[in-house]
């Protein structure tokens, strides 16, 4: 018995359970903490699937910084509580979620090709692709990150104090 099965089971359960908690918890800051656990579970699932590099990237780049930014925003400027819509959305939202799950899950399990070949999950493959076939993706990723950084600074720059 290998370690990947139990680790994947625990990580997937943590990710899906935390995601459901993030959807239903009434207080936004609790939902942000649930999001952090969901990302941690996703990172663990990636590790159990043999992508150690993605585990490190998701663990370092997403599990702490993303919830930290959202938590800072929630604590500085709290949104309304409870943060849930009423009316038709109460029924529409779970129905849409179930429809997406059924469409993606059942279709992809059936139509995607069976396993084969040697997995190319070493970081060297990422460098190779980023500099050749997927150079445009790499540049666009850098551009998106730069735009977000400059946009955030432009939005939150200090105001001129009145004289």
């Amino acid at each position: 018995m290998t370690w990947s099965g139990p680790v994947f089971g625990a990580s997937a359960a943590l990710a899906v359970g935390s995601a459901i908690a993030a959807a239903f918890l009434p207080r936004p800051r609790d939902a942000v903490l649930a999001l952090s656990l969901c990302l941690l579970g996703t990172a663990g699932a990636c590790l159990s699937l043999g992508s150690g590099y993605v585990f490190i990237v998701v663990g370092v780049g997403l599990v702490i910084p993303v919830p930290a930014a959202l938590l800072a925003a929630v604590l500085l400027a709290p949104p309304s509580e409870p943060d849930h819509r009423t009316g038709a959305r109460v029924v529409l939202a779970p129905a849409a979620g179930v429809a997406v799950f059924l469409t993606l899950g059942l279709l992809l399990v059936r139509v995607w090709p069976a396993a084969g070949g040697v997995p190319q999950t070493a970081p060297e493959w990422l460098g190779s692709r980023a500099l050749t076939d997927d150079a445009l993706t790499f540049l666009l990723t850098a551009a998106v990150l730069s735009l977000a950084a400059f946009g955030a600074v432009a939005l939150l720059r200090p105001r001129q104090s009145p004289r």
Partner: protein
Amino acid sequence: MSLFSAAVLAAAALVGVGVMTMLRRRSLIGVVIGFEVALAGALLLAITLFTLSGFESSMALVAAMALAALAMASAVLVAAVHLAMWRASGTERGLEPW
């Protein structure tokens, strides 16, 4: 159930829950929480499909990098927009002087 099927179903569940969260929440922060959950599902889906199927498996790393960058950028930008809106509304004096 094989690991491939379980991983695809878990990823699809994350995307579905993310869409549901985006539709349920009212605030900008709530919507971006759902977006992040859906992106986590898409990332897991990319890793699963490209790594376990053996079809262009290095594409999984490229997709994961792009999705992780998109998740970081959207979180930072939405947090900034949320704070800017709150500051512009003038309802919270504690945020000034910035």
